[in-house]
């Protein structure tokens, strides 16, 4: 059974924050935030400015790709988790028909970087990603294009805002399953350029992401989009409540075994979704840390906060396209569409 002892949970909650990654004076051993700098490129003419046309909470459990049986993935399944997969189906339709983005930007918690925020600037990442945690579910051949100009612009803006930010230009770095998962499920044809951002935290060591950092990174992302003139869709590759089983059934897609980890986790996920559906986005700023505390939510990796910050915490309803569990964790596919509500 999972380790849910009170001691473990107390320990998890009280561990120090990891993701404070503002640049520091050389002598300092710990984080000191510097005032965010002005954008490196002041606003251009409005007609030249890009914008965020939609944001998606786009959970990445490899089970969902596994269940789809796409040609890129080696393992075969008999399906499963249809509610979430149908939600993604609707998201794909909207992405193609309504949003027509130039680029999808994803923030993913399983590209774990220990020092700073990294942005994949490799023009054409390709390879085979055998997932070390779920190798029986995900052995995926990827081949996609990066919007390098935008990727570098995000690094520049983040750097100018005082974050430790790095260009990742090494094609040998394996692309992680949270990046692949969200991007495949939003666009299995991979025919839209991508920018992928790392998560500067390790959700398995630390209980609380540096959500303040994600505000700054989100704003830097928005400025980079604006100055490069892109129509961008953002993808926050996060699950919600994140306690889960530590074993799995013989048939991974045995849906008779799939349900919320417990009622507490489910209730907190529903409270979050109610705020989102009501468009009470500003209230999420205070509720998200509480949700993390209560449910060990994966949004502690900061992807959701990054996305909402980039979008300016819009007071518009999020459209919950679907919610269900994967090995007990809560997962929702949600769209924020400023064009529809703004």
């Amino acid at each position: 059974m999972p380790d849910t002892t009170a001691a473990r949970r107390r320990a998890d909650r009280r561990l120090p924050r990891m993701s404070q990654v503002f640049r520091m004076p050389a002598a300092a051993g710990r984080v000191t935030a510097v005032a965010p700098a002005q954008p490196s490129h002041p606003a251009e003419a409005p007609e030249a400015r890009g914008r965020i046309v939609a944001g998606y909470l786009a959970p990445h459990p490899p089970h969902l790709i596994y269940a789809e049986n796409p040609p890129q993935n080696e393992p075969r399944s008999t399906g499963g988790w249809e509610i979430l997969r149908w939600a993604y189906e609707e998201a794909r339709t909207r992405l193609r028909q309504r949003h027509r983005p130039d680029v999808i930007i994803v923030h993913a918690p399983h590209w774990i970087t220990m020092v700073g925020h990294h942005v994949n600037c490799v023009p054409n990442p390709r390879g085979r990603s055998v997932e070390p945690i779920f190798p029986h579910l995900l052995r995926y051949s990827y081949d996609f294009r990066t919007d390098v100009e935008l990727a570098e612009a995000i690094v520049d803006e983040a750097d100018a805002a005082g974050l430790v930010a790095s260009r990742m230009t090494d094609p040998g770095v394996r692309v992680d399953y949270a990046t692949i998962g969200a991007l495949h499920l939003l666009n299995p044809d991979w025919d839209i350029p991508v920018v992928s951002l790392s998560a500067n935290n390790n959700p398995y060591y630390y209980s609380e992401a540096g959500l303040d950092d994600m505000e700054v990174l989100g704003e830097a992302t928005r400025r980079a989009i604006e100055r490069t003139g892109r129509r961008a869709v953002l993808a926050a590759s996060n699950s919600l409540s994140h306690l889960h089983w530590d074993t799995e059934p013989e048939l991974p897609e045995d849906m008779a075994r799939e349900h919320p980890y417990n009622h507490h986790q489910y209730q907190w996920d529903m409270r979050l979704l109610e705020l989102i559906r009501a468009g009470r986005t500003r209230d999420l700023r205070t509720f998200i840390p509480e949700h993390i505390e209560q449910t060990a939510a994966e949004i502690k990796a900061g992807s959701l906060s990054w996305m909402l910050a980039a979008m300016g915490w819009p007071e518009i309803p999020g459209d919950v396209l679907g919610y269900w569990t994967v090995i007990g964790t809560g997962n929702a596919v949600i769209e924020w569409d400023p064009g529809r509500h703004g």
Partner: protein
Amino acid sequence: MADATIVGAALVPGMPHVLADAPAPSWKALGGAMREVGHRLRATGPDAVVLLSTQWFTVLGHQFQHHPNPSGTYVDENWYGYDYGHLDYDHRVDLELVERWAAETERDGMQARLTRYDDFPIDTGTIVAGHLLDPDGGLPVAQVSCNLYAPADALERIGALATTAATAVGRRVAVVVVTGLSAGLIQRWISPGEDHILEPGHDRWNRRILDLLAAGNLAGALEQREAYALAASVDSQGRALAFLAGTGAATGRADVLEYGPIWGTGAAVVHWRPQ
């Protein structure tokens, strides 16, 4: 029975900085200590190494590396910009020992998975330990993942079952755990000479635990595991210590060969001789 099977044990760091071309003093000292421990372990004539690396962390069941010869080059997703971020590896796996270990794990009521996939990404810690403890790659390895959703005492049982399995298949084994101590990282790019343990409190805790190990009091260290994890952000909440205790390999006084920082985290090289 276990005493006859185990020929020594070690706790070593898995950060790749110990392989740096231009290391910080502490990285160099830690790497040198790992080479020394490797020499000591090999001198006792083990047939195989029983290995746990916290950097191969999993969440479902207990995975056992079952590829006969994982080999390739691993590019670390954080340290790719440095010479030590590109790591070649070529390991041999003791399949008979692994299969018995996994079977014992299932028999004990836990879920075991044999993991055998081409292109499976071997973790940095495993590669680093292989380079320094067994540079010629002569020793086959039996490795289990570190399930972070399983309680620490499950890892302790997994450790005990390693000894059971080694005895059953007639192996003399060295036990190696690859783990950091305090895990607080310096959150900026530093030059090697700037390295230091991130927080004095982490340093005090690390030394307290190492003193207990040096005194032969692993049980005492385990009693403080949760408090240590809480106070010093310990790598995998100290699960490697629980695993080590389970094997029965870390009895008696430990020789703490080296202790120092790696990018703010605590790292130590510790050796236990067979009792």
